[in-house]
């Protein structure tokens, strides 16, 4: 099969991944039969896993492994989570193919969870630590949106820093029904606990202000 990652991109990725310190696991959920972009996502993740020994990749069927899917609140296909070195789910999830611009939030999640966590200011860290109820953040994106990875990275960062928070990318075209349900007509669109919404690549403070109002 023809490689999805060309030589140029491969070289860049190998260089970026060179800074990985800890093992991570990509767990992808797919299903038999019709599944838009399942094959492509599987191919991308397996090619990425070949680029660095710290990355493992497993594929699961969402129906045959229903228990595991529910453990990570996975309800869509393709959907994948990134687990840390201890195999813990840290609330980092991608629904749909993370290509185009979204490769950046994908790389960022891999780097952050493999021991290259970026710092947040003490003020923000304190606000994140205080969140004590379950928070789900969906970030709707298109693959041609340069502002979207930033919003996804922030949702994931919040998730990594507080176990009550889950952050998920949702590729708007792949999950058309979900996009329609949340009236997605501009991206990035951020939906918090299915009720609150933000539009645009908002600063992490804006996420927190919404979350604190829950």
């Amino acid at each position, binding site marked *: 099969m023809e490689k*999805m*990652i060309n030589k140029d*991109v491969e070289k*860049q*990725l190998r*260089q*970026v991944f060179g*800074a990985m310190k800890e093992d991570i696991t990509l767990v992808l959920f797919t299903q038999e039969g019709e599944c838009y*972009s399942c094959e*492509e996502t599987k191919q991308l993740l397996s090619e990425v896993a070949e680029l660095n020994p710290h990355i493992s990749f497993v594929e699961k069927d969402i129906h045959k492994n229903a228990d595991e899917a529910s453990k990570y609140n996975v309800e869509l296909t393709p959907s994948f989570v990134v687990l840390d070195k201890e195999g813990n789910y840290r609330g980092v999830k991608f629904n749909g*193919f993370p*290509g*185009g*611009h979204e*490769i*950046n939030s994908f*790389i*960022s999640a891999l*780097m952050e969870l493999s021991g290259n966590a970026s710092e*947040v*200011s*003490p*003020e*923000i860290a304190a606000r994140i630590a205080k969140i004590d109820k379950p928070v789900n953040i969906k970030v709707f994106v*298109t*693959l*041609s*949106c*340069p*502002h*979207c990875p*930033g919003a996804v990275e*922030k949702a994931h960062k919040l998730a990594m820093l507080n176990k009550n928070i889950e952050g998920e990318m949702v590729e*708007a*075209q792949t999950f058309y029904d979900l*996009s329609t349900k949340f*009236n*997605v*007509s*501009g*991206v*990035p*669109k951020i939906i918090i606990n299915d009720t609150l*919404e933000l*539009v645009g*690549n908002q*600063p*992490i*403070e804006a996420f927190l202000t919404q979350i604190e109002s829950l």
Partner: protein
Amino acid sequence: MFNFTIQPAFTERVNVDESKVYEILIIGGGPSGLNAALYASRKGRDVAILAKRVGGQLLNTSSVENYLGKDGSSGEELTEAFRSHVESLKVPILEDAEIRKLEKTDGIFHVLLGDGRRFKGKTVILNLGTTNRKLNIPGEDTFASKGIAYCAICDAPLYKGKDVLLAGGGNSAVEAAIDVAKVAKTVTVIHRSEFRADKILVDKLYEMKNITVHLQTQILEAVGDQRLTGVRVLDKRTMEERIIHGDGLFIEIGNDPNTSLVKDLVDLNASGEVIVDNKARTSLEGLYAAGDMAETPYKQIIIAAASGAIAALAANEYLNTI
């Protein structure tokens, strides 16, 4: 779907230092901020960039056809070329920086970020850019993100096979119409006067079979139910009102300068732009403004970049005198 656009920023990040006083602190990461950093760094100045996002509005441009020597680059390719040039000089860049406050005390500029961090500079070059102008019509807020969009390259995929309306008549509007028409079923361009866009672009627009144009037509209201379903317009030639239906409305009618941060600090003109002299100096000593937020005619990438160079050279000159 299968193209990947990797930002190089993951590899070598130089951190902006909170403890030191930079000679030149650059706020904003668009063409003017990046070019200011290049010029300042080459003068040997200690310089850093605080940016919401590197590239700024340039990122929203699918194809740049009027930057000398770079015909047909995407806004993103041009951004990355600018960025890597600046990063090759080890200029620290902080992204996702939301500036909460800028003040000058005892001859030093203090920049406070939304996340509580503080940075200092002997001089500051502002390149805050502009924000998409709104139509300011009834229904615009109601349907914001329910059919109204401001970023054509971001949101065009959401309108695949749909009927799209587009407001505006300048270069960005015409470029956006052409981009959206590649995926949408139809695009209807609505503009209150005549096209201001470059002739070369307008010619291209008229070549697209699925684009309809209504000039001398003013949008009065965005209408719809749960989502936008169309706009009520006034045909200024016949003075008749009617509804034009569409599943989405892209607004590309120009930009307003982002000057709320400095409106009490420096003099602004009637359009809200920062007043600068021919060396990019604002009314506050040591504070410079460049790019689209400054009172320079014609908002173009190459002009923004050039104004950043002027600001950096002027700041360098000023630093020699203090």
